[in-house]
């Protein structure tokens, strides 16, 4: 019997020749992620009674969740995280403003195909875009990983999603994800390793591919996997070169390692189910309040009044997302009574968006530009809605209270729909504004 991606990745990470779904393994991840919660994890770590992190070079710490600090408490929290990285010699540390952890670690080539990354963040599924095994864990578990370098994991069963063909104009990877989650439910991939197959994946840009494993956190998945191809290796080669200069190592060797260590499931691997989608039949989708699987076609909610449009997050805050929004906004104004908050996913995205003139387009249209980071996604700051207000957002979650206000509503959509809605003042189709 052939092996799935998850079975191969967890066999390697636990030092075994072969493991099977259902088995419990002690995995030693290549990368351990934390963000603003580093301070809280540090406090748990101190409870363990050990002085040193076992493999500080495996850690990656990014301050992103509430940056720059909006309150004294947040500042205190960041200060504690900085004390930790200094004390333990954590070299992969990214200061406030560098960006959202998943975007930054991707840009810095700190996760490679076939590797295992565990993080104290539910969207650690993100790294499936480059063929890595990424899974979210709790804070206590990250403290345990710092102390021991290993953590027990159950090898998940795998679900196969096949995407065939090309998406029509105006339809995005986000729409595909919302369609999938709407069809199968927020627990449709519960506990599973969700593998994406089919030529449809190769037709997507790398930035679009990043959306898919990121959104799989909303599908209940443990991890997700997309096949790493030449486009992925080329992206990594360029960034590994940069990383190698910083770390005084040979880039060429690392690029070779990335290619050599990439893992692909066997043709006769066992899947709990297979679902096939024809990309050409998909249309723009929206997730309505207050559940990500409360999905409807855009046409069904068009005209719903909004007060805030939010473009950003680890799901849809990249350059192509900003470009799609700019295409809609160019030469137009955001509707009176509506505001738009734009938060690039990283400083690199912000820099390139500035160079290409996108930031000017946003400002001329009347939008606000925020510091790269998570922004108002989980209700910390920079765009908290008032009670009874409606936000359309390019994020991944629309749970009640998510953006900080219990009695407000969040609709989730693709970046172009967010921009079109900002211009119209109500949920609108970008192909029509």
């Amino acid at each position, binding site marked *: 019997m052939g092996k799935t991606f998850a079975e191969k990745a967890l066999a390697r990470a636990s030092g075994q020749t072969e493991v099977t779904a259902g088995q419990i393994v002690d995995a030693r991840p290549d990368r351990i992620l934390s963000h603003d919660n580093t301070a809280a994890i540090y406090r748990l770590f101190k409870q*363990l009674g050990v002085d040193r992190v076992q493999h500080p070079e495996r850690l990656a710490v990014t301050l992103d969740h509430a940056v720059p600090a909006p309150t004294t408490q947040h500042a205190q929290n960041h200060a504690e995280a900085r004390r930790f990285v200094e004390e333990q010699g954590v070299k992969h540390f990214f200061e406030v403003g560098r960006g959202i952890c998943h975007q930054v670690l991707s840009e810095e080539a700190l996760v490679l195909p076939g590797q295992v990354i565990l993080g104290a963040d539910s969207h650690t599924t993100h790294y499936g875009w480059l063929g890595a095994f990424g899974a979210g864990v709790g804070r*206590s578990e990250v403290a345990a990983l710092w102390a*021991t370098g290993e953590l027990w994991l159950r090898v998940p069963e795998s679900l196969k999603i096949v995407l065939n063909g090309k998406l029509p104009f105006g339809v995005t990877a986000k729409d595909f994800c919302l369609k999938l989650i709407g069809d199968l439910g*927020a*627990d449709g991939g519960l506990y599973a390793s969700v593998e994406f197959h089919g030529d449809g994946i190769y037709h997507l840009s790398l930035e679009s591919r990043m959306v898919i494993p990121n959104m799989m956190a909303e599908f*209940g998945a*443990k991890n997700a996997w997309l096949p790493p191809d030449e486009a992925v290796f080329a992206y990594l080669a360029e960034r590994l070169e940069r990383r190698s200069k910083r770390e005084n190592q040979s880039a060429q060797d690392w690029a070779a390692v990335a290619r050599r260590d990439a893992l692909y499931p066997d043709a006769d691997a066992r899947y709990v189910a297979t679902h096939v989608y024809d990309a050409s039949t998909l249309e723009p989708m929206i997730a309505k309040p207050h559940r990500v699987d409360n999905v409807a076609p855009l046409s069904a909610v068009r005209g719903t009044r909004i007060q805030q449009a939010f473009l950003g997050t680890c799901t849809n805050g990249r350059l192509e997302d900003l470009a799609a929004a700019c295409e809609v906004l160019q030469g137009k104004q955001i509707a009176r009574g509506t505001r738009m908050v734009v938060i690039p996913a990283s400083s690199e995205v912000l820099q390139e968006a500035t160079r290409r003139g996108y930031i000017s387009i946003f400002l001329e249209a009347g939008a606000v530009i925020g510091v790269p980071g998570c922004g108002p996604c989980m209700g*910390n700051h920079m765009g908290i809605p008032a009670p009874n207000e409606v936000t359309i957002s390019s994020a991944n979650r629309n749970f009640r209270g998510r953006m900080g206000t219990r009695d407000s509503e969040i609709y989730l959509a693709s970046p172009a729909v967010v921009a079109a809605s900002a211009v119209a003042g109500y949920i609108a189709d970008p192909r029509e504004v």
Partner: protein
Amino acid sequence: MAVTHISGRAWVYGDDVNTDVIFPGKYTYTITNINEFAQHALEDLDPDFARQVQPDDIIVGGRNFGCGSSREQAAVCIKMSGVRVIIAKSFARIFFRNCVNNGVLPIVCPPAVDAIQKWDVVTVDLAAGMVTTPRGVFEFPPLSPSVMAIVDAGGLIPMLRRKLGTEHLPMPELSFGGKD
């Protein structure tokens, strides 16, 4: 020290209860003293819960209980409110782990969930793998030995202290020291 029977009143909720409604994200970096967690437990789901919960009460949920954010405070606030068992049709995986790691038992028993009504007194017998309700007795599959080892140790941190041989060291308080 292993507990075998837990008995309490049931608080009943539906499918896909997410961690944002259990412990809102706006508190994740502003409320750091775990003694304050319980007063916000389930805040955006059921404002009565924090006011009226009693030790050993049991939370009953539908499918995918605890979905969303990985925030461990969602499991800790439930623990700090005195709840030791959650019965659901299924659990989101990170929340499941967070419960186990904090000594809260996540029990999967769909027929019991269908039978239990709010305020029913429910008894969970861990050794026998049984949930007793006013409308019947239901079996649930035992938790795996690796999970029970963590629960029996009182959580992941105490278990690791034993494993690392640091049990004798003082356990630092989990807060900024009362200033927050």
